């Protein structure tokens, strides 16, 4: 992309006493993107968001907004607006006063303030609520007021801190669509933080999976899901079975023959640059494994297994299965009567050919990190 990123974070380090919250993070965000910082609690995602918003001053590294260095610029002088997890609505101001607070501070004239407030409130369907106080609003309405208060300033960057975490399932879905719609309408650049992978996958253009103060992998949700760069990422986004594998041979049509604890399997991974003898981890998603009841097909990659535990979830049935010394998770959608097995039943599993392989260095490094 030739376009300049709207936000550049370069090697940012932030410590709190003995704790390193960010250990040299770099990321570029482009105009109009929705980027998500995803990770478990304590991975530094909120700290990074707060550094970008100006609430924390980084110890080292630079932050550029729209090409300008903004290190040390306080939040009130930054063209970013934060949407707080608890909304942070001013309880002593009504909806109108809350929404127009930022404009009032900027000494905007009364008429244009009114006009802007009207248009933003109608956009998020809160017209007629101007005189209510925050404690007279439902949770969803409070959230929309907080959103309006941020949007009315037309910031270069909208920062959302766990925007959906306080909502029930219905409101979550509604709000998710709302955020996507708003982005389209206003062509906003949005960064949001979450620990919920579904939220990240369904909203973001780019996901930055964070771990212990650094970004482990960044990319489109599809890529992150299909081609995780490490065991950590594969495990955090969706669920996965991991098999230790050694590349035995590479055939002319790029088929790899792998030696694994459960026997030989042949695969053709989408990112294929392996040589014979290399160590790798095969990432096998439970939902990609095909369950076969009778071994009539004479096919490759068929493994014999025994059900250890069966968990019925309605649309899905989950099996914990034993294959030789290994155990794996298998997920079956819309199981038929015959496919509902119980512990002790035998079954066959077909491992697909397009499974992803993670090079051993990457996974070793990850294991090392985890040990630390």
């Amino acid at each position, binding site marked *: 992309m030739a376009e300049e990123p709207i936000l550049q974070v370069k090697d940012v380090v932030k410590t709190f006493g003995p704790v390193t919250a960010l250990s040299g993070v770099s990321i570029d965000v482009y105009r109009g993107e929705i980027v998500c910082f995803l990770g478990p609690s304590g991975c530094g995602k*909120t700290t990074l968001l707060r550094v970008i*918003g100006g*609430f924390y001053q980084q110890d080292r590294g630079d932050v550029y907004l729209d090409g300008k260095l903004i290190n040390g610029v306080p939040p009130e002088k930054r063209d970013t607006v934060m949407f707080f997890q*608890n909304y942070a609505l*001013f*309880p*002593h101001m009504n909806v109108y006063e809350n929404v127009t607070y930022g404009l009032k501070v900027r000494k905007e004239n009364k008429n244009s303030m009114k006009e802007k407030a009207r248009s933003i409130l109608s956009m998020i369907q809160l017209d007629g609520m101007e005189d209510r106080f*925050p404690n007279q609003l439902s949770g969803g309405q409070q959230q929309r007021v907080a959103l309006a208060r941020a949007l009315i*300033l037309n910031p270069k960057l909208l920062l959302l801190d766990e925007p959906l975490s306080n909502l029930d399932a219905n409101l979550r879905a509604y709000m998710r669509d709302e955020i996507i719609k708003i982005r389209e309408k206003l062509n906003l650049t949005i960064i949001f933080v979450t620990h919920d992978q579904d939220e990240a996958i369904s909203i973001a253009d780019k996901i930055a999976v964070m771990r212990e103060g650094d970004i482990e992998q960044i990319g489109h949700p599809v890529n992150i899901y299909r081609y995780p760069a490490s065991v950590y990422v594969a495990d955090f986004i969706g669920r996965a079975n991991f098999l230790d594998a050694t590349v035995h041979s590479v055939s002319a049509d790029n088929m790899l023959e792998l030696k694994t604890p459960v026997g030989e399997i042949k695969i053709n991974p989408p990112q294929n640059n392996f040589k014979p003898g290399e160590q790798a981890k095969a990432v096998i998603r439970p939902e990609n494994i095909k369950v076969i009841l009778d071994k009539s097909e004479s096919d490759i990659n068929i493994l014999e297994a025994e059900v250890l535990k069966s968990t019925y979830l309605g649309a899905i049935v989950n099996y914990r299965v034993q294959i030789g010394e290994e155990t794996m998770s298998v997920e079956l959608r819309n199981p038929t009567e015959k496919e509902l097995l119980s512990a002790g039943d035998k079954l066959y599993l077909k491992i697909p050919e397009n499974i992803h392989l993670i090079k051993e260095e990457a996974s070793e490094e990850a294991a090392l990190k985890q040990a630390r």
Partner: protein
Amino acid sequence: MFKAGELALKKHKNSLLNIARNPMQQLLSLVIGVSLVLFIVIPIIYVLARSLGVAEGIITLEYYQNFFARSYYYRALSNSLLLAFSVTAIVVTLCFMYAYMVARMGKGLLPSILRAIAMIPLLAPPFIFSISLITLGGRRGLISMQLYELFGIEFSIYGWTGVILAQIIGLFPLGFMMLENVLRSMDLNLEEASSDMGAGQWRTLRAVTIPLVMPGILKAALLVFIKSIADFATPMVIGAGLPFLATDAYLLVVGQHNMEMAAVLATFLVLPTIIIFFIQNYVLADKTRTTISGQSSVSSQIRMNPSMKGVFTLSTTLSAILIVMAFAVIFWSAFVVIPGVNNTFTLDHFSTRTGWNAMTTSLQIAAVSALVVAFLGVIQAYLNVRMKVYGSKMMEYIALFGMGVPGTVVGIGYILSFNQPPIHLTGTMTIIIISMVFRHLGVGLEAGISKLHQIGISMEEASWDMGASKITTFFRVVLPLMGSSFMYGFIYTFMCAMTSISTAIFLVFPGTTLGAVYILQVAEQGAIARAAAMAVVLISIVAVCLFTLTRITSKTHLARL
């Protein structure tokens, strides 16, 4: 209309049923209720009645006419009001900045030290600081002498300057505690949101922080106001004869035995309490703004811009220096022959038998009163919250009111009510203890009530469910769980009883005096060094007891409650 009547009748019937069902509890609460009325309400009624001349069998406004006819008396009123308003304004302003600094510094050594400094005046009777001010700025004080020698300026701290300064130091902890509490409980995200949307920090302070903590500011102001107007000792020591209500009420009783005029002054003292009590319970009660929904991502520290940081740091430093200096001077004058003139170390000022006896008496009285308050507080809280006994709300109000009434008024009231049959108690230790108990019961009660609300009823229900009776449950489950509120009631009452003076000074009798009273009497006679020495003893006793008690509390299971 009919329905409402029916409902009231039903409610009444229910409470009658309740009485029938739990005769023991009702009896107990009746005893507590009667004592509350007897020892809090009746004395004040006696004061009001006396001011209207009821003792002579007539009702007359003659004494009020006399009050307004003599400029000396109504100047006492205007002086007291002026003093209370200025001290309140200054203390609240200083404490706000101080508390803001401490609350926004997060955790660490510096905020802990600052907090400790703000609280140390609690260890001493508030008038003590007049003593250090006299040592520094009296006619022959250190600073005054220097000023005279260097610039030929004659400076004296006596009068308005001294009274205001001494009260600022003495009342600082009260304002600080209140304001730190509200500032700490405020959601920091609100300040961050404000600055995020472009507001500078002064604007954020004005538009967000101050409006949000306004109820706390008002509460702090009301408390400081009441305490300032009720303080009779500070003007007595350093007031240079300026008339003030509390001081003159005392002098009228002790010097001239003019009970009627003293009662009139006491009435003017108690009026603000009644008004403020009303404001607090009816006007401010619903104004508490709660922050809504969600957890906040806590950031303990907040950035301050240079101008704000400068102003706040300066004010906080000056306040801290003032307090530390006041304390240091007391210790210094206690241990040298004549401060500034002859700085030789000496222990002479400590050799006073009367003083040490007074300290021992204080210790005994404080311990007994504290124990009674702690127990009564827990029991009454339980009766109020769990048993919902008849008139519990009323009893709570009376107990709280008892805390607000100026000590001078209570003292005069006790003398008027209990110096003859049917209840003749003056001249005994009992009346001193009773006065301490009922002045502080409100604290034990409130601590107990909030603890009970916090515990919730499920644990008691579990105990009943497993077959324990209500009495067993109270002793085996409730009492242990309420340990922390018990300790709180004890510590608070102990400290106040050791340092309070305004009621006790009316009730001490020949041969028996209290520590704080002794210090005041000595200081009034001009024996500043002796007063300072005994103040050091008093402060040390309170500090040691406080330290031990909090240590016990935090080392035992109480800390986990």
